[in-house]
């Protein structure tokens, strides 16, 4: 008998618009030492399903309508409050997605760690603290005796996730539910956390349910995979079956959406040779010794000795006309600031940004206005980048009218043409942003960026907030538009596979500095800089066999203990 057997689990949410069948009769099982991955896009019900098991969904509006979940023979869904409390944290533990918000900011890490022991094993505080120090050491936190008295905000994201893992494992649970445990983390940290989970699982022989949207991550960790869509499991089976013997259309679509390999149609490397181009072609944009530093005023405005954050620190690069340059880096590397510095959206400390022969850093804001028409930006968050009080028409007409590219008479026609361009239904012209899905919103944002027929477009993580199938559509849209309108693009992303798919040339940023630049394929096949190598080796691939192989090499590359705080 498996450790957990779920049968026909059904959870509904009662909303203003009616009943939402978040989980619609799903069945799965998981055994000791086994990892079941539940894969699906946002809204597929994968998290709700797992929270329902422990009744952690808010009730109301949530309601577990039907189903059975046998855990060691006991039905969790029928269990009374007390039994459930004993199982939660003791037999079944959960690691949540966002380590930033899932730890109580008002209590020390130690206090939060020892709680499960005190309530489940009736340990004394002293014993529990001793155990907490041990397990903190086990998950790779340096000096656990000291760190145990720190508050969560004194840890970095990756370290907090380690604390979460320690907290989940401290009671030696039989089942561990990981809800997107690495989604909020950088790729190198992700690799470390995934390895940690794997190692701890092997050591303790526990069952793991791994919830993720990322098939590449799943390929590396799972034994079994269940694919969810709209509250239903559309396909489940062993990891090899799912990846190599795919049955369901949706799973095929998911797999096909993963950006893999090089830019389609970029098989003609003769278009421009990045290594020799700087002499022959005049670059559209060239940056020399650019520095953007921020002052931290949080200490108080009277103190002059504030910390200076060197977001962009002496960066030089150039972009040829018609080229897509991918800018890669982890969070805090300064890649977004670099993009904004080019457009003069943040004050530049020193250096020059030469666009088509003009140094933008020397221009007044009035002189900058005609230049702005020629360079546009696509932002990351499609929910924040559109004014919620303006219709699609208003949003798209604003740049046209403001720059005198349309008259009142022609503007509707031009907006409709733009909407055709970015694949929006013409009928949606009077709708407001909140009535669209994330992908459609990003189409509006792309439409606004290309409205003025710019020469340079800076795309700042344009697809990282989107589901993988939508991501693929937007990437293809961007490629089509670049081709159609002869755009030059700086494509900023943390996701190497996305950049590999879209960029001709890649620049890697680390701590405000440019560490390596090269053509996409040469950078991927022969990375020069140590950081690039580390970054590349950390990317998971959606191929279980290759993942197994990769993990062997990875464990050698990344040292056990880490100095990251």
């Amino acid at each position, binding site marked *: 008998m498996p450790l957990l057997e779920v049968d026909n689990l059904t959870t509904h949410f009662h909303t203003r618009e009616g009943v939402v069948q978040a989980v619609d009769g799903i069945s799965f099982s998981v055994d000791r030492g086994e990892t079941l991955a539940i894969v699906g896009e946002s809204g597929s019900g994968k998290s709700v399903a797992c929270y329902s098991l422990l009744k952690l969904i808010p009730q109301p509006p949530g309601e577990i309508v039907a189903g059975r979940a046998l855990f060691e023979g006991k039905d969790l869904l029928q269990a009374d409050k007390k039994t459930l409390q004993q199982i939660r*944290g003791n037999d079944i533990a959960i690691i*949540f997605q966002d380590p930033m*918000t*899932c730890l109580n*900011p*008002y209590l*020390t890490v130690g206090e939060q760690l020892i*709680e499960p022991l005190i309530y*489940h094993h009736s340990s004394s505080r002293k014993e529990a603290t001793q155990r907490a120090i041990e397990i903190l050491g086990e998950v790779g936190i340096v000096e656990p005796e000291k760190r145990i008295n720190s508050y969560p905000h004194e840890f970095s994201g990756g370290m907090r996730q380690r604390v979460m893992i320690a907290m989940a494992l401290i009671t030696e649970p039989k089942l561990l539910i990981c809800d997107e445990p690495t989604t909020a983390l950088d790729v190198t940290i992700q690799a470390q956390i995934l390895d940690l989970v794997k190692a701890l699982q092997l050591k303790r022989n526990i069952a793991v349910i791994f919830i993720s949207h990322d098939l590449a991550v799943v390929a590396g960790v799972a034994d079994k995979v269940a694919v969810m869509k709209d509250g239903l499991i559309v396909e489940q089976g062993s990891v090899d079956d799912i990846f190599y013997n795919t049955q369901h259309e949706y799973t095929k679509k998911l797999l096909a959406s993963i950006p893999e390999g090089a830019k389609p149609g970029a098989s003609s490397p003769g278009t421009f040779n990045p290594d020799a181009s700087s002499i022959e072609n005049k670059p559209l944009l060239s940056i020399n010794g650019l520095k953007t530093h921020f002052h931290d005023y949080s200490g108080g405005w009277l103190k002059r000795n504030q910390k200076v954050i060197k977001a962009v620190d002496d960066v030089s690069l150039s972009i040829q006309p018609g080229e897509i340059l991918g800018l890669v880096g982890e969070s805090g590397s300064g890649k977004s600031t670099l993009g904004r510095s080019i457009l003069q959206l943040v004050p530049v400390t020193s250096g020059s940004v030469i666009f088509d022969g003009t140094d933008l850093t020397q221009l007044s804001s009035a002189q900058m206005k005609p230049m702005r028409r020629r360079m546009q930006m696509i932002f990351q968050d499609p929910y924040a980048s559109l004014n919620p009080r303006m219709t699609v028409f208003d949003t798209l007409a604003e740049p046209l009218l403001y720059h005198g590219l349309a008259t009142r008479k022609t503007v509707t026609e031009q907006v409709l043409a733009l909407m055709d361009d970015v694949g929006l239904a013409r009928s949606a012209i009077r709708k407001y942003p909140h009535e669209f899905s994330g992908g459609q919103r990003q189409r509006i944002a792309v439409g606004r960026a290309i409205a003025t027929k710019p020469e340079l477009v800076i795309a700042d993580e344009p697809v990282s907030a989107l589901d993988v199938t939508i991501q693929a559509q937007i990437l293809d849209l961007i490629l089509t538009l670049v081709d159609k309108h002869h755009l030059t693009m700086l494509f900023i992303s943390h996701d190497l596979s996305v950049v590999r798919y879209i960029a001709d040339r890649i620049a890697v940023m680390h701590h405000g500095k440019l560490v390596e630049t090269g053509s996409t394929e040469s950078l991927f096949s022969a990375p020069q800089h140590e950081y690039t190598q580390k970054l590349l080796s950390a990317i998971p691939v959606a191929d279980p066999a290759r993942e197994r192989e990769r993990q062997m090499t990875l464990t050698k590359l990344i040292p056990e203990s880490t100095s990251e705080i």
Partner: protein
Amino acid sequence: MFRFILSRLLQAIPVLLIVITATFFLVRAAPGGPFSAEKAVPPEVIKALEAQYHLDQPMWQQYVGYLNDLAHGDFGPSFRYPGRTVNELIAGGLPITAELALYAMLVAIIIGVCAGVFAALKPNTPQDYIPMSAAMLGICMPSFLMGPLLVLIFGIGLEWVPVSGWGDLPGDKILPSITLGAGYAAFLARLSRGGMLEVMSQDYIRTARAKGLPERVVVLKHGLRGGLIPVIAFLGPAFAGLLSGSFVVETIFQIPGLGRFYVQAAFNRDYTMILGTTVFFATLIVLFNLLSDIVAVWINPKLRHQLREGH
């Protein structure tokens, strides 16, 4: 932490100076002097009186002299109560007002926070609606209306408690304390409900539940701290409000406290008395604001951390 308290104390000095200066000149700028109300006083007497209280000196000299006295803890003599100093008058009224404010604060915090937290545990159920309707009633029923109504019902109608005085008859402290505290209890109830609702929807509460902690621990240990932060931030202003509320309550219940002195002094143009009480009240309010800031920092490790980093 020590440096934070010190820097906040230093910041309080200009605030107090502003208060003293503004009050001093405001009162002097008023038409009509303290002795103008008395009829048929010979000019020589007025002159003598003015000389006695240094009112014949130039304004700036009076100001400097007053500041000097203040620095020595001397609020000066009362104009209206000859032979008595403002210090004496304040010392007489203070214990009563302080006691009233303390009881009112207790009423406000205990009833308010309990009702708010209780309501937040089951939002949109009768357990939420009933205390919150009561709170709405408390907010929309100002003290000068609630006081008389309470007197009418419990004092005159049911004759359960005395209708006026302070400390003369058993139970005469109940109505004034409730009258003064009720409005703030209502406000705190709404604040703590809002705070608790916000906190209880946080991810870390879900984490605490997922750890299998009893609901009691989840609410009291994990929820309450964060949920009460807005309440603590409000305590400073609430104290200021209680002090000015004491004007009304002490008038209604005929309590010989500072608030009533203040209103009377204001009507009588008793310069030194107005000045003295204003400065005294302002100091209290500033100190209480400081205290609530310190508690807010102490309870919130993030702020504590920022302070350490900032210095």
